[in-house]
């Protein structure tokens, strides 16, 4: 079905997400530092952090069970496996035969399920608080995300990511009005899913505001490295999806060195740009009150509902 070269590139695409993801996090941190008139750490800092954490000793809570110990591994395995289904700089991934966009969403949910359990496992109020808020976010983001997938799948003929991205690459510039609304919804979903402002502030450890950080507060050493890395992978997957579904320019549809090179460079440029935009936005807005967040998610749901009606009309 697929040649060796294609399978090889499929593997490279998956590995590229796993390996480049800390870089994107680094770019975001640098941007935030710059907008706050700081010099900031180098964009390679997340790599140093991960390596450092892997070599460190660990402290484990005496209240915790095996759920707490396996959670970082399940997180990493689920999200890193999801990375292999994403067409990155080639319009298809041979792994698309095994799973589609809904599977990717399912793997995200699996990772989140265990993170929420790990938050409860350590018996502190912080963990429970994080899990409780995450329960609300994830439950409300689910319909928004599914509606967006609905529009994209109907417009491009499938939930199979290779089909979608290939159709996007072959289409003219934003040929469908519903995609604008889908893009608005998707942008809000990305902020929510990756715990960015105004949903959650990844840079703080203040009990009033933290969500994701509260659930993983007890982690240290190797486990923390895995958690941080898998968060970076999740961010990179979502950004790659946004870029490849809504702004496919430059993506390669054939296997030649030149087009693959262009595809790779343009992808890194686009994702970095998107990361810079998100980081800049994060610097300019404050975190919203917890019970105003549903309003924002409602905007996403409403936007994708308009998109869906537009598709059918």
């Amino acid at each position, binding site marked *: 079905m697929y040649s060796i070269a294609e399978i090889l590139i499929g593997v490279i695409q998956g590995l590229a997400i796993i390996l480049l993801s800390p870089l994107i996090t680094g770019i975001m941190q640098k941007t935030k530092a710059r907008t706050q008139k700081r010099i900031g750490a180098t964009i390679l800092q997340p790599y140093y952090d991960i390596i450092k954490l892997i070599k460190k000793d660990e402290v484990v809570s005496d209240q915790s069970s095996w759920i707490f110990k396996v959670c970082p591994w399940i997180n990493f395995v689920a999200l890193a496996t999801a990375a292999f289904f994403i067409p990155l700089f080639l319009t298809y991934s041979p792994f698309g035969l095994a799973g589609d966009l809904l599977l990717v969403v399912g793997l995200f949910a699996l990772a989140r399920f265990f993170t929420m359990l790990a938050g409860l496992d350590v018996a502190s109020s912080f963990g429970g608080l994080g899990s409780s808020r995450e329960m609300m976010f994830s439950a409300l983001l689910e319909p928004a995300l599914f509606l967006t997938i609905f529009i994209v799948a109907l417009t491009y003929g499938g939930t*199979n990511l290779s089909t979608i991205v290939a159709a996007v690459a072959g289409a003219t510039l934003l040929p469908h009005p519903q995609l604008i609304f889908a893009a608005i919804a998707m942008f809000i979903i990305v902020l929510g899913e990756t715990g960015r402002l105004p949903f959650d502030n990844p840079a703080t450890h203040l009990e009033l505001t933290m969500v994701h950080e509260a659930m993983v507060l007890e982690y240290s050493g190797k486990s923390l490295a895995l958690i941080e890395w898998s968060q970076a992978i999740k961010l990179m997957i979502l950004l790659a999806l946004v870029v490849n579904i809504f702004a496919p320019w430059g993506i390669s549809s054939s296997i030649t060195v030149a087009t693959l090179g262009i595809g790779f460079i343009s992808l890194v440029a686009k994702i970095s740009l998107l990361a810079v935009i998100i980081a800049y936005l994060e610097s300019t807005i404050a975190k919203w009150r917890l019970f105003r967040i549903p309003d924002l998610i409602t905007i996403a749901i409403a936007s994708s509902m308009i998109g869906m009606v537009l598709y059918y009309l």
Partner: protein
Amino acid sequence: MIENLSLLQIAIVLFVTGSLLGLFSRNSKFTRMLTFVPTMIASFFTVLFSVITITGKPFHFIIPNVLPFINFEIFADGIAAFFLLVISIVSFAVSLYSIGYMKEYETTKRTSVFGFLFNIFILSMILVVISNNSFFFLIFWELMSLTSFFLVIYDHDREENVKSGMTYLIMTQFGTAFILASFLLGYIQTGSFSFDVFHNSSSSFPFLTKNLIFLFAFIGFGTKAGIIPLHIWLPKAHTSAPSNVSALMSAVMIKIGIYGMVRTIFDLGGFGLSPDYSWWGLLMIVVGSVSAIIGVLYAVIEHDMKRALAFSSIENIGIILIGLGLSVVFASLNLTILSALALVASMYHTINHAVFKGLLFMGAGSVVYATHTRNMEHLGGLIKKMPWTALLFLIGAISISGLPPFNGFISEWLTMQALLSSYQIPSTILQISVAFASIPFALTIGIAAATFVKLFGISFLSRPRSEHIAKIKEVPRSMIAGMSILAAICILFGVLPFLGISLLDTAFHLLPHPASPFDAITLQNNSAKSFANLSMPVVVIMLSSMAAAIFGFIKVIGGKTRKTTFSTWDCGFGSLDQRMEYTATSLSQPIRTVFKTLFRPHNKIQKEFFGGTDSYLLKTLKVESVTKNIFEENLYLPIISSCIYIFDKIRKLQTGKINAYLLYIMITVVLLLLFVRLSHNV
């Protein structure tokens, strides 16, 4: 054929033996063995029977003229055999579990009666599914309802259990009345009680009759399935019944309601429905969506384990109905392949729900067995005391949350694909209405995951919330074995979905089967490109190789590091205790606040002051967070109170004086004479 019949006969004889042994053993030490072992063997034979029937020819058996003009007919085609399989797999696991579980009741109750009812209950469900005659169908249906009623009130020392039993009895009779009405309409049209006759002549039924038959059957079977707003009995009965009975009721009995609906739709023309009947499907989708979303919203705020599971059953019945409704919509528009896809999705979810809900109720039963409480606020930390129960409950929780690579994911994936396929419907209005069903569906899945994070997290993880948990120990082996069977099926149906799909294809005579276990589930779009692909075995291989790779990577880079165990971070204030943990109620507080229109949450505050009314010195303060059950308060209470009002008025007729009664008789006779006279003139 003969072989088939003897398998079924052996099973029936064994069920009867089990029940009689239960009665005659009179609470001896061996009662549990004597009653539940025959059930297990009988269930095993029923599994064999249904597998042989699914793969072979339909099974037909008639005893003519048992009652005057009524034949006793048994007919098991693929559909019936599929439901038999669901019943018998779960009853096998549950009876194994019951051997250990009933020990708890041995000292306080008569387990012999329980064994009798338990066997008859399972037998009646089997007979309902295979009877091919509306007369016997109703007899067995009532037998099923009554035995389950007695099982619900088995623990009748508590008044609340008797109350829930009564609610169950009334609602189930309400449902039966509608089923009876539906069958009588069929009888008026055909003059026969036989389902075969209904099936063969249904195409000549008038339009209105067909619709009425469907509507009555939908209400009747829907009551049994627990659709909203007829669900009122379900959370009560499931909570009051002993956990092994709840497992059977939730996993199997409510599926008989689904079976009834499938039968009605198939018998009224099967897949030859015309577009006039699209509204059947739409009704099912709407009711399914409402049941799913309201069911799961009540489940997530619940702190009683079994009640939460019961509400989650309503949710899953909703998901099954969405699939079934989609199948009817597609069938009525002659989109046969899509209809088959939606039917597979819905039936896959039926068997999945039977398996994981059976497992979860048994898990909750184990918790009750060990701790004697269902209230999650008093649990916590069970994973250290009951490691096996915790692991098996976790498998059930992941499966029901629809997470890969477990079975719930497969059926929810299929249902989503069926929803997505609505773009092939020719009418725009219908397209949009069906597509909008995806919003409640997706919201349901999101909240379902939150529900089971709460159920597992609060009960099994973190610090024990009450002292007696320190003394509990793991449940007996037979209970763990019973749960393990269903947990294994959860994994099997998740990792190898081709098993379930080819089973359904054969049973319902649908699409071509997947050829090999590694074949992906493939759907194609209009331009013959892949619409969606899913191959779970490959995904599992990818997951495990990724796990091996990252484990190796971390070990090589990080080398050996020390792990220290220390207390949880307490901000330097010292001594965290169980009162500082999150509780079940606080965990779901954000969701309760977001959906406050439905829950109407408010805090009941009771203050007690020193010296009576001195409002500065507080002696005690009690805060209770209360939510309203809007269905009970706004729909059922008005009906009940108006009934009581009318009965009060009617009671005035009952004066107790003989002259008054004679007057009533005379008035009646005069009215009847007038009626006869007048109707003759016309």
